[in-house]
C-alpha cells in the first residue's frame, strides 16, 4: 500500500523523516531571477532526484476557491509551449524515470527521480512549465472530473477522511488550515480555467520556488545546467507568503460525527505553535519530544499503557508536525477497544490521564535516551533514500525554515530538558486549546438486528 506508507512517513515522529548528516556536501545559492537552488551530493548510486517546490498551497486559497493549488498541480502535466498534454510524463516514463507531484497546505512540489545522465531532461521540462504552461480549457474540463474522482476516492467514500476533514474545519478558526487541500466539492464544481491561469501567473515565478537536487552530481557540472534551463525563466513579481496564524486561545470545541464507520474513533486536537510561529524554539522541539515519548514506537507510553497494559484502545497515537508554515496542531487519535466495552469517553479519560501524568512528572532519562537513539539511527537510515533527503530539504525551505536543520536538528532536540517536555504539556495540552471529535458509526447500522 503505497499510500499508507506515504502516510506513515508523514507521521511527524522524530525518527523516520529525519535527514542526512553533514558529511554530505550541500551547496545553496540563488539565480539572478530569484530561484533558490540547493544541491546535495550523494554518490552511492548513479541516480538523482530533482524537485521544484513552490510556496503555494491550500492555505493560500481564498474562500470559495479551495482546491486551486491542487488543480493547478494536475494541470502542470497538461502541456507547455513545446510539450503536448501528457507528453512530458510519457517521455520521462520512456526513460524509466519516476515522477510525481504533491500538494500540501503549505506547498506544491514536483519531482523526478532518474539516472544521473538524464538530469538535463528533467530540468528542461521543469523549467519550461515554470513559465510556459498552456492551461488549455478542454484539458481542464476533463481533468477537473479526474480531481472530483480523486476527492470521492480519498474523502467522500472514506469515512475517516470525512471525519478528519470536518475535524480540521473545527480545529482551526482564524487559520486557513481549516480548508481542505483537495477543495470542497462545491468549489471544484465552480472552478474555472481562468482561476487557474491567474493562480499560475501570480505564484509560479522563480522567486517563489526552490530547486532541490540530491544525488550523484557535482556542483561544477550541475550549476551550468541549472543556469542554462532555469536561468532563462523571467523573474516576476513575488506573491506575498503569509504565515497562517491561529488565535492564541479559542475555547473548547466539540463535535459529534455520525458516519458510515464500522469502528468509533476519537480525535483530540490542541492548537499549538510550529517551529515557524513559536517565540521560543525550544517549545516546538519539546512538543516533538512529547510526541515521541507518547507515541514514538511500540515501547512508547500510549502503546504501552493503553493498547497493551489496560487494553483500553484498539489503537491510539499522537501526531505533531513542527515543520509547517503556520500554527500547528498536536493531535491524539484512537479507537476504543469495544471488545472490552470501552467507549469514547472512557478512552478520552485514559488519554487525559496520560496527559496529566506527563504534566506532573517529566519523562525519564531512559525514555529520552530511547527517543534520541532512534533519531540518531534515523539520520543514517535516511541516507539510504535520496528522495527522502530531498523531501526534507525542500519542505524545510519552502515552509520558511533553514535547510541546515537537516544537519543540526539533533542538537536542538538534545538541548531540551525533561522538565521542558512537561512544561509544554502544561502550556498547550489544555482544554481551551482543544477540539474534540467523537466519530460514531451511523445509528442506521446500530438499528439493524
Amino acid at each position, binding site marked *: 500500500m503505497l499510500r499508507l506508507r506515504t502516510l506513515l512517513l508523514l507521521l511527524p515522529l522524530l525518527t523516520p523523516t529525519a535527514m542526512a548528516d553533514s558529511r554530505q556536501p550541500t551547496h545553496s545559492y540563488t539565480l539572478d531571477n530569484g530561484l533558490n537552488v540547493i544541491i546535495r551530493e550523494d554518490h552511492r548510486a548513479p541516480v538523482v532526484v530533482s524537485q521544484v517546490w513552490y510556496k503555494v498551497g491550500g492555505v493560500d486559497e481564498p474562500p470559495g476557491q479551495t482546491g486551486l493549488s491542487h488543480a493547478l498541480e494536475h494541470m502542470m*502535466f497538461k502541456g507547455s509551449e513545446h510539450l503536448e498534454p501528457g507528453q512530458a510524463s510519457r517521455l520521462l516514463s520512456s526513460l*524509466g524515470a519516476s*515522477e510525481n507531484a504533491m500538494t500540501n497546505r503549505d506547498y506544491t512540489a514536483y519531482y523526478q527521480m532518474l539516472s544521473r545522465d538524464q538530469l538535463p531532461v528533467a530540468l528542461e521540462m521543469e523549467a519550461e512549465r515554470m513559465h510556459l504552461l498552456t492551461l488549455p480549457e478542454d484539458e481542464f474540463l476533463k481533468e477537473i472530473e479526474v480531481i472530483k474522482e480523486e476527492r470521492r476516492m480519498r474523502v467522500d467514500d*472514506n469515512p475517516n477522511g470525512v471525519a478528519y476533514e470536518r475535524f480540521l474545519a473545527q480545529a482551526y478558526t482564524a487559520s486557513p488550515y481549516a480548508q481542505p487541500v483537495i477543495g470542497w466539492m462545491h468549489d471544484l464544481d465552480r472552478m474555472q480555467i481562468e482561476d487557474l491561469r491567474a493562480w499560475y501567473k501570480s505564484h509560479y515565478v522563480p522567486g517563489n520556488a526552490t530547486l532541490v537536487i540530491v544525488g550523484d552530481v557535482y556542483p561544477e557540472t550541475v550549476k551550468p545546467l541549472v543556469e542554462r534551463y532555469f536561468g532563462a525563466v523571467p523573474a516576476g513579481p513575488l506573491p506575498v507568503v503569509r504565515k497562517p496564524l491561529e488565535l492564541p486561545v479559542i475555547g473548547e470545541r466539540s463535535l459529534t460525527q455520525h458516519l458510515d464507520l464500522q469502528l468509533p474513533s476519537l480525535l483530540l486536537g490542541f492548537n499549538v505553535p510550529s517551529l515557524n510561529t513559536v517565540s521560543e524554539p525550544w517549545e516546538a522541539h519539546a512538543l516533538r519530544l512529547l510526541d515521541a515519548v507518547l507515541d514514538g514506537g511500540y515501547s512508547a507510553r500510549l502503546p504501552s499503557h493503553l493498547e*497493551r497494559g489496560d487494553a483500553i484502545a484498539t489503537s491510539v497515537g499522537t501526531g505533531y508536525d513542527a515543520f509547517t508554515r503556520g500554527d500547528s496542531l498536536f493531535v491524539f487519535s484512537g479507537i476504543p477497544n469495544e471488545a472490552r466495552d470501552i467507549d469514547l469517553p472512557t478512552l478520552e479519560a485514559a488519554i487525559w490521564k496520560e496527559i496529566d501524568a506527563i504534566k506532573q512528572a517529566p519523562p525519564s532519562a531512559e525514555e529520552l535516551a530511547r527517543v534520541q537513539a532512534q533519531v540518531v539511527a534515523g539520520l543514517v537510515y535516511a541516507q539510504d533514500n535520496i528522495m527522502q533527503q530531498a523531501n526534507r530539504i525542500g519542505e524545510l525551505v519552502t515552509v520558511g525554515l533553514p535547510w541546515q536543520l537537516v544537519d543540526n536538528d539533533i542538537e536542538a532536540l538534545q538541548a531540551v530538558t525533561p522538565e521542558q517536555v512537561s512544561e509544554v504539556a502544561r502550556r498547550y495540552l489544555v482544554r481551551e486549546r482543544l477540539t474534540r471529535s467523537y466519530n460514531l458509526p451511523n445509528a442506521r447500522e446500530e438499528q439493524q438486528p
Partner: protein
Amino acid sequence: MSQSKPFSVLRWLIALVALGGMLFLLMERAPDSQPAPDTPAVAQAPDDGPADTATEVFGSPLPALSSLEELDLDTPPARRGLDLQHWQTRQGTPVYFMHAGELPMLDIQLLYAAGASRDGELPGLAMFTNAMLNEGTGSLDAGDIAAGFERLGAQFGNSSHRDMGLISLRTLTAADKLDPALTLFAQILSKPSFPEASLERIREQLLAGLRYARQRPGSQASEALWSTLYPDHPYGIPPDGTEDSLKAISRYDLQRFQQTYYSAGNAVIALVGDIDRARAEQLAQHLADAMPQGPAAEPTPPAEKIAASSQHIDFASSQTHVLVAQQGMSRTDPDYAALYLGNQILGGSGFGSRLVEEVREKRGLSYSVGSNFSAMQAPGPFVISLQTRSDQAEQALEVVNQTLDRFISEGPTDAEVNRAKQQLLGEFPLSTASNSAIVAQLAAIGFYDLPLNHMQLFLDRVQALTATDIREAFARHLPASERVVITVGPPQPPAEPEDNADQPSAAAEQEPSA
C-alpha cells in the same frame, strides 16, 4: 515481491484515523506505480538496428527540447555495482548477501513460506502467528522487546502475505548496536512465547481489523476477487481470517504454526549492509541455528481454472470500484518476462500506458486506474482496477474490456515494445539505488528459487522479446472465458435482468464508448 498485506493492524488503524487527514494534505497525482520489478543486474542497450533510438522511444516528431537531442540513448544508464553472493547455512537455508559499505547499517530480511496459503482450516492463522512473534520471548514481554530495539535505534518489522511471512531488522553496524540487536532478534526467531495476554489483545485487534475492512469498498472488492478466483485453493483463504476462525485460534495453533513454518528449512535469509562476507556467514548461521529446525513446506499448487463471471456487491458509496481479473502467472512462469513487459504497456506503468490513456486521460473517468500481475508461487491474479462515479461504472468497464480485448487480439505495437524496453533499462538504476530495495529483491530471488543472476536474465529476456511474443503470451494466459468482473458500489439499476451474471464479461460491446 508478490501480493502483500501489511500486517500491523494497529499502527495501520492509527495512521488512518489519526492522520487520515494527511490524505488530503499531501497527495500524489499519478496512479500508484507498480512495485519495483526484479530488475536486471547488468543492462544492455536494446539491440535495435539502424533506426534512430530517440524516435523509437519517444515517437515522432520529437519535442523541441535540447536535452532530449543531447541524450545518449544507445548507452545504457550507469548503475550501482552489485556484488551479489549466495550460499547455504549448514541446515541448507539459502542466504543472499550484498556488501554495502557506504553507510554503517545492515538490513536483514527473512522470508518464510508461512503465508496465509498455509492457514488450512483456520483462516488468519498465519497473520496471527506473525503478529505474535514480537509479543514475547522467554522472559521478555512485548514492551521489553520493543524498548530493546528502540533504545538501539534498531527497527524490527514483521508482516504476513499470502505466500510468505516476513521478519526484518534494520540496525546500525557499530558493535554496541549490532550485537545486542541481533541477540534480541535471534530470541524472537527461537522462542516466541505467545503470552496469553498478548494473544487476546491481538485477537481483538484482528477482529477490529475485520470490521474496519467492512467500511472500505476497496477491501470488499479485493476479498470478493480472491474468493472468486480461488474458490478451492489456498489463495482463496482470507488472510485476515474470519470472525469465527479468529475466535477459534488457540495458543497451541500459533505455536504449532511457528514451529512448522518459521523453520530454518523453510526460510530464506537476505542481508545487505556494512558487514563483510565472513561476518555475514557467521550471522546467517547464527540466525538459522536460532530457528526451529524443520523442512521446507510443499510448494503451493496451481489452482483449478475458473469460468468467467460477474458479480456486484452493494455498498453505500459515491464511486463504484471496478475489478476485472483472472488467474495470471506464477513467479517462475516461462512467460514471466513477456507478461511483465506487456503489462507495462497495457496498464502497469502509469501515464503512457493504454489503460491510463483510455480511462483517465481521454475520458476523465477515474483518478487511479491500472493493471497488475501478482506473480506468486502459484499463478496469482491478473487485475485491472479503477474507481469511478457510480453512474459511469458501466462505461468505464466497457472501456477496460475493449482495451484489454484489443491488446490481447492485436498485441502491442513495435514502438510500444521498444519504449517499454527502454523504460525497464532506465528503471534499473533506480530500483537498485537503496539497500532496502536490494534486500527485498534478494529475498524474493531466494523465496522463488530464482538464479542469482536472475535480474540479468530477466533483462536479457525482456530485450529479446517481440510484439508477437507478448501478444501470444497474453492470449495464452488471459482467455476471455476466464475473465471475472467484480463491482462494489451503490445498487445497480435493475435495467437489465440478472440472468447475464455468469456470462463472459468480454461480451461488453453493446455500446461503443464515447
